[in-house]
């Protein structure tokens, strides 16, 4: 059995890589149909393997498999293996990644049909799938980081896929740079783990974790920190970069410059959840540090609320969903902070389905509108693209957490968990998340009402050609709509509301933090919760959000304009993305430029080049020209020098 899983894991990980390499190397020479056939088969193989692994590990409860594929680096006592740890957490992530990836591959056949970089696009996507599987399957931190950087690289390549466009090229730079900040901290965290634990292998780290709980480190004199706190905060900063948490979230909106399928796959469903996954994976460490958990909780909740606020004032259909993604990632991170790892991963799972659905549906809208993305130039599209409308609506209801859609189960569990949490910052976070539910309702249905209802604001010529998207585009929408409706109901009980749920012992929760157990104790049953859900505060907040949205954009469309006039400062703050970009621009971009100028013009050109490099050279030449004069050409000088040398030596040796 173990051997089977061993083989299937390798197959699942390597199949997309093989597809990517073949298509990538031959991308100029092969027709489109071969390019997508190869990559789709690769990902399909991967998906089937993942299904089997999921069945084995999660449903049938086989023990986790931890194996080494090969020795990568051996240096002294340090051993770095390429290895895989296949447990419940990994199996769930495998399934999510390959499922969404497969559907996005299929969707792209239609979406990218006219693009000249068709084969390149598919090669990148398969490469992404490989990297992501490597990330979630790793049994050690270095391999995780390898995948982490791999997905970052592909993300960069795909955001800048249309590199001829300045905004796309800049967006890819921004994504890369902001991620470097997080990665730097992540590297430090890994280094700290290697330093204190002497290993980067999960199993060995976790085995040692309890003994390290009380070890402290003096970062600043006289202020001892718990080593695990430092490690966890550093790792979390890495997660903040990857999972777009405030203040490292600024790259995600820019990433929308990439093709829409990429936004669905990488910047909504999978890559951005790597941070959430990593925290869950490192739960045995995080659980040892209340400080780190509290930070995770507060950052997550803050992100959930404030990025939602920004979403309300956006006009670009993809950017609205992008801000929504950050907000939802905030929920997942907050769940991790409240030690409700299973709820966080559950939301990751449901979110992957409905957010991919929303993005792909938005892509369908964008195709129909001939690449117009401003929602105020659309309107009443439900008449023209009904399939897209229905699927989009399902996604929106799931996102807004209306029972019985998928998002309801996961989000409700998170908010409940946070309300039960006792770590510092839990109350603040609870209110942030509740308000976040309201805000979600507002921006989601603002999008629905403006795009699919109301007046038709597009040009006449465009209206003539409006039609539903091709089959390869609609098929993934329908497939994704199904789990967006039912997956919550199916998995809620086994995943969250059961002791030792689907994730089993692959995440670790300290008994003092165990909110999931309390949740499970109160669980009324899958269907009963649908009705009791109507009584929960989150539902009322979400419903209020939808109502406000309806009132403002359908009933009284003039109202938003008045609100903007009355509360222009708030509006401006939101439009300016709460000042994060401006802050970064002033402090980091301009500040760094000034600093670099100083380093270049003063330190390098003047001091190092001018004084040290050229100065030493010129000094030697000057000495040389002076010393040259010693050679006067007069014989008596020569003789004198010899005599002088002789006497000098005599005096030196005889007197001293």
């Amino acid at each position, binding site marked *: 059995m173990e051997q089977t899983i061993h083989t299937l894991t390798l197959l699942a990980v390597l199949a997309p890589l093989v597809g990517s390499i073949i298509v990538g190397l031959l991308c100029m020479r092969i027709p489109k149909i071969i390019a997508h056939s190869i990559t789709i088969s690769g990902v399909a193989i991967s998906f089937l393997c993942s299904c089997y692994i999921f069945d084995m590990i999660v449903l049938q409860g086989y023990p986790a498999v931890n194996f080494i594929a090969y020795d990568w680096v051996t240096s002294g006592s340090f051993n770095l293996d390429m290895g895989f740890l296949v447990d419940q957490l990994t199996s769930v992530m495998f399934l999510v990644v390959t499922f969404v990836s497969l559907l996005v591959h299929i969707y792209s056949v239609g979406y990218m049909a006219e693009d000249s970089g068709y084969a390149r696009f598919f090669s990148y996507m398969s490469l992404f799938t490989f990297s992501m599987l490597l990330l979630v399957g790793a049994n050690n931190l270095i391999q995780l980081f390898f995948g982490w950087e791999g997905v970052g690289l592909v993300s960069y390549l795909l955001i800048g896929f249309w590199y001829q466009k300045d905004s796309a090229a800049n967006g890819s730079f921004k994504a890369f740079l902001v991620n470097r900040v997080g990665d730097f901290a992540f590297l430090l965290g890994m280094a700290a783990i290697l330093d204190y634990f002497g290993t980067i292998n999960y199993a060995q780290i976790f085995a040692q974790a309890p003994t390290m709980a009380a070890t402290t480190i003096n970062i600043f004199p006289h202020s001892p920190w718990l080593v695990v706190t430092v490690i966890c905060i550093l790792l979390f900063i890495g997660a903040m970069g990857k999972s777009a948490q405030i203040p490292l979230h600024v790259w995600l909106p820019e990433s929308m410059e990439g093709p829409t399928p990429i936004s669905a796959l990488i910047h909504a469903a999978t890559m951005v959840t790597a941070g959430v996954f990593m925290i869950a994976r490192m739960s045995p460490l995080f659980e040892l540090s209340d400080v780190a958990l509290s930070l995770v909780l507060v950052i997550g909740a803050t992100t959930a609320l404030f990025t939602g606020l920004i979403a309300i004032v956006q006009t670009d259909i993809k950017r609205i969903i992008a801000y929504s993604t950050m907000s939802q990632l905030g929920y997942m991170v907050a769940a991790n902070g409240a030690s409700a790892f299973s709820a966080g991963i559950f939301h990751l799972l449901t979110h992957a389905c409905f957010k991919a659905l929303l993005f792909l549906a938005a892509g369908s809208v964008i195709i129909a509108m001939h690449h117009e993305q401003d929602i105020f130039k659309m309107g009443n599209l439900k008449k023209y693209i009904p399939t897209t409308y229905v699927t989009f609506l399902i996604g929106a209801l799931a996102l807004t957490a209306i029972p019985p859609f998928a998002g309801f189960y996961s989000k409700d569990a998170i908010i409940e968990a946070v309300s039960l949490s006792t770590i510092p910052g839990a109350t603040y976070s609870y209110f942030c998340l509740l308000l976040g539910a309201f805000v979600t309702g507002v921006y989601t249905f603002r999008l629905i009402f403006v795009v699919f209802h109301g007046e038709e604001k597009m040009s006449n010529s465009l209206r003539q050609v409006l039609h539903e998207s091709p089959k390869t585009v609609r098929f993934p929408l329908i497939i994704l709509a199904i789990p967006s409706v039912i997956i919550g109901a199916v998995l809620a009980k086994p995943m969250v509301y059961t002791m030792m749920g689907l994730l089993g012992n692959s995440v670790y929760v300290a008994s003092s933090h165990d909110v999931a157990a309390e949740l499970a104790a109160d669980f009324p049953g899958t269907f009963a919760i649908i009705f009791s859900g109507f009584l929960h505060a989150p539902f009322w907040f979400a419903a209020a959000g939808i109502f406000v949205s309806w009132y403002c954009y359908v009933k009284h469309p003039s109202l938003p304009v008045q609100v903007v006039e009355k509360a222009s400062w708030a509006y401006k703050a939101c439009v300016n993305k709460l000042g994060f970009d401006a802050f970064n621009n002033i402090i980091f971009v301009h500040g760094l430029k000034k600093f670099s100028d100083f380093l270049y013009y003063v330190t390098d050109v003047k001091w190092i080049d001018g004084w040290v490099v050229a100065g030493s050279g010129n000094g*030697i030449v000057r000495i*040389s020209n002076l*010393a*040259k004069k*010693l050679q006067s050409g007069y014989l008596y000088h020569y003789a004198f020098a*010899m005599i002088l040398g002789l006497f000098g*030596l005599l005096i030196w040796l005889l007197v001293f």
Partner: protein
Amino acid sequence: MQTLPVFSAASAEILTGIMICVTLLAQTFLGDKVKQIAYYLVQISLVAAFILLARELYDPAIITFSGMFDDDAFSRLLKLSICAVSFFVFLYSREYITEKNMPSGEYYILGLSSILGMLVLVSSYNFLTLFMGLELFSLPVYAMVALQRKSVINTEAAMKYFIVGAIGSGMLLYGISMFYGATQSLNFADVAKVVADSSAPQSMLLVFALVFVVSGVAFKLGAVPFHMWVPDVYDGAPTAVTLFISSAPKIAAMAMALRIFVDALPGLVLQWQPILIVLAIFSMALGNIVAIAQSNIKRMLAYSSIAHIGYALLGVIAATDEGYSTAIFYIISYAIMTSGAFGLLTVMSRNGVEIENIADLQGLSDRNPWLAFMMLLVIFSMAGIPPFVGFMAKVAVLEALISVHLVWLAALALLFAIIGVYYYIRVIKVMYFDSSKAKQQAVNLPLDKNIAISVNGLAVLVLGIFPGSLFGLCLSVVHTGF
């Protein structure tokens, strides 16, 4: 009872002496009929001496001629090198001598006489033999510098050389006489014994004597502050003579230093070591720094030779078997490099062109790419750039220093080496990147010159990549010889 000396121990010297007479007679009576007869005879005698020496290289050491002459592996290796290098020197010089209308017979005969002096010097085991060898090797050189009697520069250089040389010899002789006074002997073994046993009152006298002897040796080596003659003589002498002065005599002078310091005065190591450190530092510093300011390539190479002597002395300073062997290695490889560099200058100074300044090499890579490449090998090697032999030699002496914990001196030596790289690289830059202003014609060489230059240049490379055999040889002669 007086036994006959073992003449076979001095077979190379005897052969050379006879050949000097033969060449002199042949040049006098057949010089007009047989062209270049002196050249061929001299080259034949060098080859013969080389073969004689090579055959008995590993024979046991013989001290003979009443203990005045030491025929050991050390002296045989250095004599071999002297003969080999001189062979190349005469080969490079032939056309130069003919073209400049210099008295060719005299050049070769004086050269061979000087070589005889060097051979005697290398084998000396007595201060008297040593001094006799030294004078026999020096006097013909003074005459060679002045071979072009009508040239003011040549005669000036010769006069300077002769006068400061006389002072240097005087110092050496004065030192030797004091050693004789202190030890009642001129024989190295006896001197060494007395010095080792000497008590405090005498050591003052010994130090006094040592300083004079060191000064004399430093003069011959051309170490600062006894170096003043080097640039003037290198520059003032005809290039072929400079070529001769710069190569084999360095080996002989290093042999003299090793004979005196290691054979005769090991008991004074604590005194001569600091003196040599000072001389070496000054030589490396002044040589490398002043070379930068030179535009005349012969002067530049003169200062470079001062610096190289500093590096070679580092091996002696280490005062270990490894150190002495690296000093020998260094001086042999330096002789190869310098004969290559001056040899190139000599063979290129033809058809009325005289290579004097660095600028004269402009565009050499276009005019004769192979020659430029050979020059590049030699110059890189002098600069101590891997993988050439100059690099291995520097590494070896520095390693010897470090193993006796003179790390600071090694670091200082390295610093000066870095400064030195500048002026070496400048030559390469001029050859490869500066186009010549005056349209100079292509440089073409006779076949034997081409082969000799190629052998010389490639030797620098090959010995750098495979230094093991020469290293082993140097180490073994030190182990068996001293």
